[in-house]
């Protein structure tokens, strides 16, 4: 049984947790604050916090200069689409690896993960040519496929870990009751692994939302998501940090809200099976 913490230790732990959280969140906070400053105030040295000239002008200009709703919608379609498609492929794959493992299952899992260690730029030209021949450049469908492929190893790994926690006897019992293979996966396994599937889904939506290499390389105008929207505000000559911050804030806000509301689910899923 866990020992109860003394009030003093509890206070110290809370303070430590808040300090770490603030350090981690500080860059995002600073970016959001910068987005409300004027350009000279944004680059002032020493940095200004309480003496800054606050303004909403940056948001107005970013909104006026870009078709934000289109970029936003593309991000939603691409991140949700690639995650759902990934789950459709990953659930049966993870089921097979968790409940009917072969001699090489572990090797296969490691190999899949090793593809994530390859620098993306190494496969840029082959993938670009493939997409070009198939007419998938600058299409949302193409990006759904690309991001699904990028994140599939992670989805399979996470689901495999969750499925391993589910007693095989329950699945056996369902089989004895006459469940078919798909019935077993859809009606027995999936509901039991729902927290794990939900956290996998959330994490992959976040990964796909933040992806900024392929989404810029494989798009031009029609399918460009919010990562391309941010890139369009980066300037080599001239100080436009406040506008860049406003564009970045507009791009991360939806995913920040999603992460905030689903944090319990995320933490639960990510720590699933951590303590036995």
């Amino acid at each position, binding site marked *: 049984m866990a020992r109860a913490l003394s009030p003093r230790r509890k206070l110290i732990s809370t303070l430590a947790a808040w300090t770490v959280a603030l350090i981690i969140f500080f860059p995002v906070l600073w970016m959001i604050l910068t987005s409300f400053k004027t*350009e*000279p105030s944004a*680059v*002032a*040295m020493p940095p200004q916090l309480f003496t800054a000239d606050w303004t909403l002008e940056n948001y107005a200009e970013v909104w006026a*200069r870009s078709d934000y709703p289109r970029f936003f919608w593309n991000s939603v379609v691409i991140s949700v689409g690639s995650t759902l498609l990934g789950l459709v492929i990953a659930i049966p794959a993870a089921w097979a690896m968790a409940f009917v493992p072969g001699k090489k299952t572990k090797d296969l899992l490691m190999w899949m993960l090793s593809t994530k260690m390859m620098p993306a730029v190494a496969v*840029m*030209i082959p993938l*670009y*040519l493939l997409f*070009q021949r198939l007419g998938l*450049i*600058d299409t949302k469908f193409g990006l759904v496929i690309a991001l699904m492929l990028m994140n599939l190893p992670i989805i399979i790994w996470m689901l495999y870990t969750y499925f391993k926690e589910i007693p095989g006897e329950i699945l056996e019992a369902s089989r004895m009751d006459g469940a078919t293979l798909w019935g077993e996966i859809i009606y027995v396994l999936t509901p039991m692994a729902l927290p794990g599937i939900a956290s996998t889904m959330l994490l992959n939506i976040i990964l796909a939302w933040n992806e900024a290499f392929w989404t*810029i*390389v494989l798009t*031009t*105008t029609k399918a*460009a998501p919010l990562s*391309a929207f941010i*890139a*369009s*505000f*980066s*300037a*080599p*000559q*001239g*100080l*436009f940090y406040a506008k860049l911050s406003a564009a970045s804030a507009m791009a991360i806000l939806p995913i920040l809200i999603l992460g905030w509301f689903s944090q319990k689910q995320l933490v639960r899923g990510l720590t699933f099976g951590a303590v036995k």
Partner: protein
Amino acid sequence: MTKTLRALLGATALATLAGVASAETTITVATVNNGDMVRMQGLMDDFNAKHPDIKVEWVTLEENVLRQNVTTDIATGGGQYDVITIGTYEVPIWGKQGWLESLNDLPAEYDVDDLLPAIRGGLTVDGNLYAAPFYGESSMVMYRKDLMEAAGLTMPDAPTWADIEKAAAAMTDKSKEQYGICLRGKAGWGENMAFLTAMSNSFGARWFDEKWVPQFDQPEWKATLDTYLKLMNEYGPPGASNNGFNENLTLFQQGKCGMWIDATVAASFVTGKDSTVADKVGFALAPDNGLGKRGNWLWAWSLAVPSSSDAKDAAKVFIDWATNKDYLALVASKEGWANVPPGTRTSLYSNEEYAKVPFAKMTIDSINSADPNAPTVKPVPYVGVQFVAIPEFQGLGTTVGEIFSAALAGQKTADEALAEAQAAVTDEMKAAGYIQ
């Protein structure tokens, strides 16, 4: 003719007309995010009114990402872009590769002879104009008139490096965080090496001799680097090895630099509303050493049509609109003469209204004093003032830039840096087959 037949013929004619009316060509324009480009996007109503049959879609990207995406697209014949924004570094290389469409057939009203000769020369390969300049720039000295006056000095219109050193020493007061000179120190072929390569030209140095043998072991490069390090170590701001264009702009705008030698386009920023020293800035040509070449560069952001485009005619119509004389007049009428894209046309500099812009004369004088086809005192086999127009230069420039930036940070001496640069560039040039 029966009524039915007439009706059918009429319907067919209407359908044909409707088809023609809706035959809209869409072109994709890839560009960088800078003030002039943003301004152009804001003036698209004029283009749309004149060319309702052409729809323009924009892709705005960071400079290096744009370069990567456009290179990939052209090299693979993708045809994603119909108009691309490229610099003077890419035009000679891509033009030779056959990646760009010749713009020799632009209409006579475009008046190609009005383009500034230095800029036009940098965009022409074997007699073919491969890109139309949207704005051109050089580099010059921007200095604080008040600090010079307080020091009892006068900045010549065409200073020498000795003048610069004297002024830097006189204006430095580190106790007040006031530094005599701010120069680029951040590593990169378009960062510190743009400045140092241009500076080296005025010292008689060159990247390669006529046989592509690297020249960093020659006394001219030693003099260049020694002068640069002395200026920056004694009169420059702390942490200068991290400073690029934007960092130096901030320092100058906040009154911390006595001088800043950088792009002429910075003139509008240091005299603009965000600058605390806007009314105290003077301009002079980039310094020289009396050898016939000044330490200023030449760059133009230009519009080109990739050979992979499937809407080349519409793309040329757009380029004509965006870079002709009428466009300059359009910007002037909407935003004032100070906001007209500079450095492309001779006629702009004979315009009386434009002559009133404080940095106009120094900009054109700077541009005219740079020649990309004869950039150095001694002969060279390459084109380019602050770069060498060969595909390997991006990598080479960045490698040498990192070595020189480390020397500025005090991690190595000038001699060590030059020896390292010579070895690194020699290896690369051997691997690329330029030398044995």
